[in-house]
């Protein structure tokens, strides 16, 4: 095909295949995708791209090829600074490069570039094929840390409760206990509940403070992430608190959750204090209208 006949569609497909190939321009030219559109060798690039007075056609194309990976790797470094700290520059770049090969950007915004990075890290762990009990644990730390950082970015720029009416502590604690047990609590849109196999929120905090934390020991941890006044807060929870908040944010009531607790009455008293604290932190948007008290719940709780 002569260069005059190479249409816009052919040129764009070919150029993208060449400059996004991690093996560089030579690798891109030789790739099946590029050759599907323009089947030329490095020596023949000038049939498509001209040389300048100072640079060969290949060198000019290489400017775009270099910039493609460098720019997107830099974006991931900006979005995952604590993961970068944990992995170190060399290892982070290796993971980032492989991620970009497997999950290239398909969005108009770079703010979504890292949304699949935690998933990619989980999929690509070296022992991914091994039975669960035989896996190394350090990849869990990496995946958990990436998950935390991505959630942080999403909560930071996503919908929040600023300007909305939130349930406040006093209003919530003034609800008669029988009504509170049946109340449906609407979570703030920015509330995220997360579980981890490592205490990554502590590591995250320490690294942000430049404390150079060591790799922590594994420990199941539970986190509520939220935002008030455009500042993201990470709150550590106990397992029971996490389970209660998860239940409440998926439509269950305190009364329903309490039925599963061994000591219901003291649990409800404690949970009521938790609800007050969580209301202070802006976890709940508003209180829905109280429903009719369910006699069964009341009876079981012996109020």
């Amino acid at each position, binding site marked *: 095909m002569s260069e005059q006949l190479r249409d*816009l569609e052919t040129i764009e497909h070919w150029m993208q295949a060449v400059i996004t190939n991690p093996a560089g321009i030579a690798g891109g030219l030789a790739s099946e995708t590029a050759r599907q559109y323009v089947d030329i060798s490095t020596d023949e690039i000038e049939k498509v791209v001209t040389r300048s007075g100072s640079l060969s056609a290949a060198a000019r194309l290489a400017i775009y090829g270099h910039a493609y990976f460098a720019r997107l790797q830099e974006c991931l470094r900006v979005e995952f600074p604590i993961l970068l700290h944990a992995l170190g520059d060399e290892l982070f770049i290796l993971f980032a490069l492989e991620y970009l090969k497997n999950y290239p950007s398909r969005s*108009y915004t770079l703010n979504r570039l890292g949304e699949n990075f935690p998933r990619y890290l989980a999929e690509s762990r070296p022992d991914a094929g091994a039975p669960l009990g035989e896996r190394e644990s350090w990849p869990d730390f990496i995946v958990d840390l990436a998950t935390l950082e991505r959630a942080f970015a999403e909560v930071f720029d996503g919908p929040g409760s600023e300007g909305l009416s939130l349930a406040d502590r006093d209003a919530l604690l003034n609800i008669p206990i029988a009504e509170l047990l049946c109340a449906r609590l609407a979570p703030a849109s920015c509330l995220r509940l997360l579980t981890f196999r490592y205490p990554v929120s502590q590591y995250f905090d320490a690294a942000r403070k430049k404390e150079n934390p060591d790799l922590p020991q594994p420990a199941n941890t539970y986190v509520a992430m939220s935002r008030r006044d*455009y500042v993201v807060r990470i709150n550590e929870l106990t397992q029971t608190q996490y389970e209660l908040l998860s239940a409440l944010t998926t439509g269950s009531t305190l009364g329903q959750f309490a039925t599963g607790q061994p000591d219901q009455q003291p649990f409800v008293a404690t949970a009521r204090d938790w609800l007050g604290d969580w209301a202070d932190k802006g976890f709940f948007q508003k209180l829905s209208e109280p429903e009719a008290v369910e006699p069964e719940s009341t009876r079981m709780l012996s109020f």
Partner: protein
Amino acid sequence: MNTARLGHPNLGCGVGLRSVHFNYLLDSHPQVDWLEIISENFMDSRGRARHVLDQLAERYPIVMHGVSLSIGSIEPLDFEYLRKLKQLANEIGALWISDHLCWTGVNGLNTHDLLPVPLNDESLDHIVERIRVVQDFLERPLVLENPSTYVAFAASTFSEWDFISRMAIEADCGLLLDVNNVYVSSVNHDFDPVQYIESLPHERIVQFHLAGHTNYGTHLIDTHDGQVIEAVWELYRLAHQLTGGAATLLEWDAKIPDFPILHAEALKARDYVGAPTGSSSNREPEVIEPEAFAISTPIHFMMSGGQ
């Protein structure tokens, strides 16, 4: 068309809004003529970035500048993207919407680069038609910028200035003349930047961009990482004379200085209105060794900031 700048005002000397300057702008309310935002950083934001923008839009004229329209791509236009673009423009009262003469990807992929198109009749027809569709959808003229480019195509039959001139006239759109990009591309493609600027339809130039670049000896890269060099300022003087003036914006996206330094650099544009009065010390930047690759269109141009 007889109306200069498509009827848009000459806003004076503005700067690109970057997240590192949010607090300064909110706290100090500096006297800045206008601000340009990167559209994609705010289209989906429901966080602090958008909150800050809403406050600044009450105080400063805002212009939207996009990087993902991909007007030159053979991919179908993304109408969900255009809907969000239009919505944001309406919500913040943006004076105009600009993007680049480029394509950003095919097959659903976004390279997040401003890639060049072959400059020929096929591309021209394709792009003109897409500009018309976009303008109909946005219900306002589109303003398109000449990008810095590093390759040229054997299939090109137009000079860039001829292509852009015909595009603007046939599509009835505005132009954002990036004077630094003209200079960078003139070195990279061995053309005369004065001829480029003299040949454009000056009445369609709505806005100017100025920026610094990096000199690799064999080529220049548009890095937005420093002061504007004297040769670019002189091209700006020429462009100002030919157009009668237009809103002028300084882009600085890597090694971003404190706001007062950035603003002072933007205000230098006032010294390049009218006849030359003396020489400046801003010569071509030192040649950078090839292994110290810089990235064109640096990420702070394209990413909103974190907490």
